[in-house]
């Protein structure tokens, strides 16, 4: 039983990271109708920012600096992507464009950092382990869970309870109406795109001590994020959170219970959700009725 408890804890840690990654993807798709396949590449940029700045460990201050630098890099990339995709209305064209950006960014990173696997050390202060339910568990992962919780609350308050949030939600639901009310939806869109990308890059730094950085990681992360968005429903904060938690648990507990099937359990979960709730578990209120 203790084993499964630790697995669930681990699922929470992965879920927290997935939430940070998938949130931007979900909001951008729900709001701008842009399928951003460069989202994984933005994550990888964050991971390599950590490689460049943190590398062999160091203090908490350096790690925080890496987080801030990654957020800035992510925001810039997100803004650029928003500008690029704005003129293109079709999903397929957007997918091709952002895929091209993703390939270019990934190749540039591999030119700059090489193809080796890089590991990123957790800050020395939190690099140790504690005993949870009789098993050793890394402190850093507990902090990641904490970060996920804080992020969830903060984003919930921002999007569901603040005035800026109501503008964002309204833009997801009905963009022409919001602009008819005199609000510059373009600015909202770029802001959300940039913030989502910044969050993905930050997740790249935070996931560094767990997943490291290497070529190809961007594709795996993007894949997980897409599955999270499909399960959770488009354009919804709560959906992204639920989807991330579900996938985190399916991965961790699934691997503990039926390791033989671990590699495709998340796709089975996705297929099941698509069968029963094609719009996702918690789609944004507006999109469910919009045709």
């Amino acid at each position: 039983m203790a084993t499964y408890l630790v697995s669930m804890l681990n699922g929470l840690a992965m879920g927290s990271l997935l939430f940070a990654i998938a949130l931007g993807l979900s909001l951008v798709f729900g709001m701008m109708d842009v399928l951003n396949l460069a989202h994984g590449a933005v994550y990888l940029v964050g991971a390599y920012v950590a490689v460049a700045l943190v590398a062999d460990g160091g203090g908490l201050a350096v790690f925080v600096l890496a987080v801030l630098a990654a957020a800035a890099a992510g925001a810039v990339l997100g803004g650029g992507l928003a500008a690029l995709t704005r003129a293109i209305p079709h999903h397929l064209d957007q997918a091709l464009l952002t895929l091209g950006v993703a390939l270019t960014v990934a190749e540039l990173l591999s030119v700059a950092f090489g193809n080796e696997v890089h590991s990123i050390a957790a800050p020395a202060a939190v690099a140790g382990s504690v005993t949870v339910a009789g098993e050793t568990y890394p402190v850093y992962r507990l902090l990641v869970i904490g970060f996920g919780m804080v992020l969830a609350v903060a984003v919930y308050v921002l999007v569901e309870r603040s005035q800026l949030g109501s503008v964002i939600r309204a833009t997801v639901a009905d963009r022409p109406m919001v602009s008819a009310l005199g609000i510059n939806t373009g600015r909202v869109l770029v802001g959300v795109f940039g913030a989502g990308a910044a969050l993905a890059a930050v997740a790249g730094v935070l996931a560094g001590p767990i997943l490291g950085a290497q070529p190809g990681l961007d594709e795996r992360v993007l894949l997980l994020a897409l599955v999270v968005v499909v399960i959770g429903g488009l354009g919804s904060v709560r959906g992204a959170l639920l989807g991330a938690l579900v996938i985190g648990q399916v991965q961790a507990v699934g691997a503990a219970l039926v390791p033989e099937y671990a590699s495709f359990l998340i796709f089975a979960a996705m297929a099941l959700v698509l069968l029963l709730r094609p719009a996702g578990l918690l789609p944004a209120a507006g999109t469910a009725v919009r045709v």
Partner: protein
Amino acid sequence: MGILSALSRLPRPTRAVTVLTAAALALAGCGGSSLNQSGGGQSGGDVKVGLLLPLSGVYAPLGQEMRAGFQLYLDQHGGKLGGRTIKVVTADEGGGPQTGVPAGQKLVTQDQATVVVGVVNSATALGLRDFFDESKKLLVIANAGADAITGARKSDYIWRTSFSNGAVAATLGPEVAKEVKGKVYLIAPDYAAGKEMVAGFRKSFEAAGGEVAGEKFTPFGTTQDFQPYLSTIRGSGAKAVWSFYSGAEAVGFVKQYKEFGLAGKTPLYGPGFLTEGGVLDAQGRDAIKVKTSLHYSTELDNPRNKEFVAAYRAKVGKPPTVFSVQAYDAAAVLDKALAKASDTSAPELVKALNGIGPIDSPRGQWSFGADHNVRQQYYLREVKSSGGTFVNAITGELG
């Protein structure tokens, strides 16, 4: 266009989900495809050697190390092997047989290479086997470890300067059986090499009186979180763990082995790829005390190796790896064979290879067996810290 028009008729939210799902599935399907690249050009030298190495994809670091090893031997011998000027043509093996097999065929048919050297991926090696066997061209494999290449599917025209999976794993079995008082847990990725490694180790380990606590194969290439498996291992009461991983998985496994508190209590053993080259750099101190079996380490104490390590460092700026040595030795083998053969046709080269005798290598002396596989000394290695970096110190020889 059918799919697109059907897509555009769907209600919008459904359409969005469909696109997303399609994107997710497409991503799941395509691993690391890659573009081909080659040197090309007309011949200016006597013998053309085709290097088939991964220049892109997950194995790219290995490709770089192998190319550096081969090139170092050429540089040390004035660009000549067996007295003949060598022209090297390189092709990208990519991440698997879908790119590697056509690239290998192109080296022979289009670039007219006399001999092809390299091949990291076992599936690529096996995919090329019939082509080389039937077109009677020489292939010197400098990595791919599948047992079948020099076993059930052996060919007159295919020789291997590296290792076979079963052998490199089996050599550690008796040692672990002797050192560990209690059962040992086996864990490896779920693909051909993982299965061969586990089978090889298990056979020699059990023959030496060892007992297996459990055996687990993890999804290959997608496992990032080893916690569930590590918890199972802890629950099994195993006194030690034997594991085969390489590349990113080796980094993840060894680091998490430490994070989840197994290192220090439960000794970790495995084939040397668990802690080789760039992998060990990324693992750092988390790999200390991991014991592995391999046919090479930079720490080997013989004059030939000292000279090789110094020359390699001077040229590349990094210490060599087992992969560099395997390619270096492939050049040494060709050097001897070309010197012996009366002409450069494949049958003559094969005849020369059959009587080539022992190779004096940085890894120690080795020779080809009747199956065209290497017969070599394996070493017991232990990760130790040495002046700020981490190395695989040699702690013994394995039978």
